[in-house]
Every structure is written in structure tokens, then in C-alpha cells.
């Protein structure tokens, strides 16, 4: 039994991988994530928001299962970023989320939200999931699942199985992007067995590409 399987069998609680590590793992497998950095001050937030829209997020083990609405601010510019930073910081302290960090992230172009996730099954190992993202994933449960590693056929059939296929991938270019992304994620978890769970929720599919704006990896 591998270490990972032993972990699954023992039902050990997984922990959240630090954002930097998750981000560098994504980059290594060619998965596109928005430019981001940790911010320590009001000024830092304003500087990061220069000439673009940004999001600020509190990153903490304790904020994992909370509704994230309170600890994330979206669509900030250089004028609003500083105040948003201060209010987020105060809120995190107030809600006893320490230790925490605040991450500033470049906003993605608008588009369709999808979810790609993986987990580790006792019997079959790494599984990968695709679905329409945002609020819809819970409501419609329109998701498809395969065991990793997946090939082109698997990825294509995952997509074509979804009722929301035409929403997620309205043209062949976006279809190719989803398929390629699915395969990259599969490759990533297969070669990094210690990744117990991964959530890319949402990935924003826009006209010219995609952006995995929220990455959560449990190890």
C-alpha cells in the first residue's frame, strides 16, 4: 500500500497546501492561473492594483469551509484596493482566522465558470471531475467523472456527457481548451500522488483562454 492509500485508509484529515506551492505546481504543469502575490499593507494592495482590476482574498486553514463571501473582495482598482485590504484584515482578525495571509490576484476577463476537481478514491485512486461551475454545480449536479490518467477520448467524453456542454464549450476552440486543461490536471495529480484533493473552482473560460482563479489543494 502506498503512503497515499494508507492515508486514505486511515481517513487522515487533509490540510490545505500553501498558495505559493499550489501556484508553482500549477505553473509547472502549464495550468494558467492569474498573477498573484501576498500583500502586507494597504500600500501594497494599491500598488498591485495599478492599471488593473484585482481581487483580495484571505487565505487561512480556518476559512476553508466558511462561506467565502465575507473574506474575499472582487473587482478592486488602485483607489478601492487599500480600503478593501484594511477591512479584510480587520475581518480576518475579528473572525479569529489567524494565522492568515491576504492574497492579491489579478481579475480574469469575464466568462463562463466551470469547475474541475480531483479526489482520491480508496479503490480507483485519482478521480477527475468536470462540471458547470459557480452556483450551478450544486443545483444541477451536472458533472462527469473519470479515473486518472485520462486520454483525449476520456476528456472528450467527459465534456460531451454534460448537459451544459454547449455552455461550457460553445465552439471547437473552447472545447480544445477544456480537453487540454483536463489532461493537464490529470497528469498533475497522477504524478503528484500526495495531492489528495484539488479544486479549481471556478475556472473562468473566456473568449481567448481560461484562468483558474481559485486553486485549493488538499494534501
Amino acid at each position, binding site marked *: 500500500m502506498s503512503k497515499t492509500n494508507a492515508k486514505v485508509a486511515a481517513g487522515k484529515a487533509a490540510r490545505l497546501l500553501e498558495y505559493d506551492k499550489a501556484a508553482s505546481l500549477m505553473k509547472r504543469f502549464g495550468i494558467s492561473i492569474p498573477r498573484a502575490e501576498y500583500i502586507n499593507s494597504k500600500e501594497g494592495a494599491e500598488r498591485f492594483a495599478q492599471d488593473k482590476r484585482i481581487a483580495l482574498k484571505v487565505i487561512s486553514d480556518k476559512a476553508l469551509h466558511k462561506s467565502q463571501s465575507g473574506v474575499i473582495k472582487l473587482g478592486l482598482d488602485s483607489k478601492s484596493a487599500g480600503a478593501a485590504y484594511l477591512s479584510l484584515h480587520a475581518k480576518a482578525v475579528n473572525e479569529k482566522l489567524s494565522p492568515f495571509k491576504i492574497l492579491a490576484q489579478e481579475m480574469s476577463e469575464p466568462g463562463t465558470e466551470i469547475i474541475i476537481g480531483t479526489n482520491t*478514491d*480508496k*479503490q*480507483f*485512486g485519482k*478521480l477527475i471531475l468536470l462540471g458547470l461551475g459557480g452556483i450551478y454545480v450544486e443545483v444541477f449536479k451536472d458533472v*462527469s*467523472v*473519470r*479515473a486518472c490518467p485520462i*486520454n483525449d*477520448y*476520456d476528456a472528450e*467524453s467527459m465534456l460531451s*456527457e454534460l448537459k451544459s456542454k454547449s455552455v461550457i464549450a460553445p465552439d471547437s476552440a473552447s472545447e480544445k481548451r477544456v480537453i487540454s486543461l483536463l489532461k493537464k490536471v490529470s497528469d498533475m495529480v497522477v504524478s503528484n500522488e500526495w495531492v489528495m484533493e484539488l479544486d479549481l473552482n471556478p475556472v473562468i473560460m473566456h473568449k481567448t483562454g481560461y484562468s483558474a482563479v481559485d486553486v485549493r489543494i488538499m494534501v
Partner: protein
Amino acid sequence: MDYRKINLLFKPKSVAIIGASENPDKVGHVIMQNYIDVGFSGKIYPINKDAEKVLGMKAYKNIKDVGAQIDLAVIAIPAEGAIRALDDCGKSGVKSAIVVASGFSEIGRDDLQAELVEISEKYNMPILGPNCLGVMDMRSRVDTMFLPTFKLDKPKIGGVAFVSQSGAVGSTVLDMISHEGFGLSKFISYGNAAVIDEVDLLEYLLHDDDTKIVLFYMEGVKRGRKFMETVKRFTQSKPIIMAKGGITPEGSKAAHSHTASLAGSAMAYEAVFKQYGLVHAKDIDDLLSFGKIFETENLSQGKRVAIITNGGGTGVLATDALYSNGLELAELSGGSAVALRKVMPNIVNVRMPLDMGGDADDKRFAAAMDIVTKDQSADMIMVISLFQTPGADSRVAATLIHYKSTTDKPMVVVSPGGNYAQVHNQMMESSGLPVYESPSAAARAMKALLDYSNYIRDTRGIYGKAQKRQK
């Protein structure tokens, strides 16, 4: 495990029955009686520590006293004794064993099951079970089941292997299969899968020339990754129709205590089934209904179904059934329409579904079949033959059987009804024409066939090649 060693369970030349008894209430009695009843041609050695003779044959106190080569030992005594008996088998050079006794991991006695595995490894002796019914081989006439022959109808010989983790599901389905049109190659009930597990069995059946398709009832796999790899190769050459117990969390709990299966999540099983072309039967009805179409029919080239009916309303229901199952009504070619117009009476509308009228007789069926079976725009054919109508009689059944033999397209008959209909249904089924009681049952089975056909079409290039490379 080398799958070839499993062959000994099905084709033994000599069998020892440990626990064979004169007492008809004992499992060992029934098993031995079955061996005699089905006409097993090899040697039988009853083992019983208290009897001189069992069922007229010389009995031995211990397997070690036999002093001859034994290919298979069937162990029909309780768990603790079974372990000692297995060790004796190993010492005497017995080549394989089936343990029907329960009382192992399924009731928490992991220690006894571990001992059993140890003995198997020590003597290099494959063991089926424990907690199982064993096997039935229709050709070699081996039957290790402890179910009296008069209580259970035995299926005829055919190309379907039926594998069941559960003995109870196994024996009921076996009884039901004997009333279906198809025959069995082998029946295997493998219980706790302590040594021989589902992967070994599939590997064996993949190489078994008598087996064309596999019906499988499973509660859980033991080696998930290996199972995936095996199924991927298997489904390229033979279909597997899989009913999985324990899909709900509660059912899964029941299964765990039942055959000590390691449960994975239901979602994972469904994903793997879909990914590697397993035909997923939602229940036992599906298992039998799908088995029937897969056993006799070719793969389908597409989803367009031609419907020929002698009842309008049933044709409407059948059309609904097609579309609710993701199938489509075929649109006949212009040539077919012209030809049908010539041979059908004026009251018949020449379009799909083709309603030939309640007075349609065998000649009208033949005229329609002649044209529709040749039409390239139909991938499959559903014939609704209502035997309650004045025109339908044995000649219609014979006509359908004839046209079935002239076409490569998958073809099924829908014929609901009582005794008169049943007589004809049996006639058609035993001639290899699948008959369904309702349009929706037929459509479900056709969809299952189509899904598998599409899977093979889409993956042959990927997995088919990989298989050749490995040879």
C-alpha cells in the same frame, strides 16, 4: 495469479468432496449428488471422517488417505474445519480448492480468512471463495453448488458466463436465466474473493473460448487499478454487463458486511464503468434483458431504429421509448417508401413507425421486413408483433425468425401477452431472436447495445492497439 490455473476449477479430472455425507440435509450431500446427477465423467472421492460409503461410493476419512492425484477439492464443512482440511489438501498435493463454507471475513473473522490465504500461497493452490457457491461448467458438467437440482432449473449451454459475488443473487439469476433464450458457458459464485478475485476471473474468462459475453453481479472490487486495466482490455473483445450492488451508502454498508468488499464510492464505480465500456445494468432485470440482446445481436452502426408494428398504439409507445432512451426513429429512404406503397394495403400509412394494421398476417410482415431490413437508413429494427390480433400466428413468428437470419442489423421483437404470445416468444427466443415484453424494455436494451457499440467504435484505435502490443 496465473489465470490458467483457474481452469482446474472448471475442468477437473478428479474431485474430492470434503464433507460428503449420506445425510440429505448436509451441504456435502447435495454437492455430491449434483456431481452424480449432472453426469460428471471424472473421479469422485467423498471425504467423511465417520462414513465407510457415501452415495454408494467408497469414502475416505481424510484427503491424505486417497493416494491419488486430485485436481479439485470442494470443501463443504464449517470454517474452522475447512482451514484444517485445506492444509491437508495442500500437503496431499491437491491442485485447487473451492471453499463453500461461510464464517470468514464477512462475519469479522479476518484471522480465518488470512489463514486460508496463507495456505493457498504456501502450497501454490488457487482457492475460490470462501462463502460462495462455487462453479458450474455447462460443458464439462462440473457443478459444485449446494442447491438441489429439483429446486433450480438449469440453463442450457451457450456463450454467456455469469459471475456473481453473491451466492443468493447467483442462484436466483441462474434459475431465471434458464427461462431466457440464451445459454450459459459458466457460472461462478466467488464470495469473499480471498484468493481468486474478480480480476483473476475476468482474465480467465477473457481467454475462455466458450465465453462470448459476461454477466456480472458485483458488490465491490479488491484491486481497483488492476480491475480497470483488465476491464479495458476485456471489453475490447467481449462485452461485460455489470450490475453493482451497494450503490447507495446504506446498500454499500450492507454489502460490506455481506461479502467483505472494500467499498469505493458509487461515483467512482460509475465513472470507471463508463470509462472502460462496461455495460451498466441498474438491476437484475437489466442484467437479463441486456444479456439477451448482447448474446445474439451484432453491434449497432447507429441510433436510427425502424419500427414495424401490427398495433398503432404500441407503435406510438415504442416511438416514445426510443426518444426517451436517446434513440431515434429511422427515416426510410425514398426507394423503400415507394416499394412499401406497392405492397401495403391502402389503409397503411407508409412512414415510420410502420403500422401495418391489426389484420397484418405473415405475408404482410414478410413484405415489410423484406424492404426495411435492406434499408441503409435504419441501423436497428424493432418489430412489434401483437399475437392478440387476428392475423398474427405461428407463421408470423416463423417469418420473423427467417428475416432475422437475413440481416446484420440488430433486431428485436416486442411481444407482450399471455400464454399464446409466450409460446411464440419462446419459439423466437430459442431461435436467437430477442423478445421483449414492452417497447421500453426493448428500447433500454437497444440503447445499452448502442452505447457499447459506440464505445468500441471510439476506442478500438486506442485500446485495441494497446492490447495487441502486449501480446
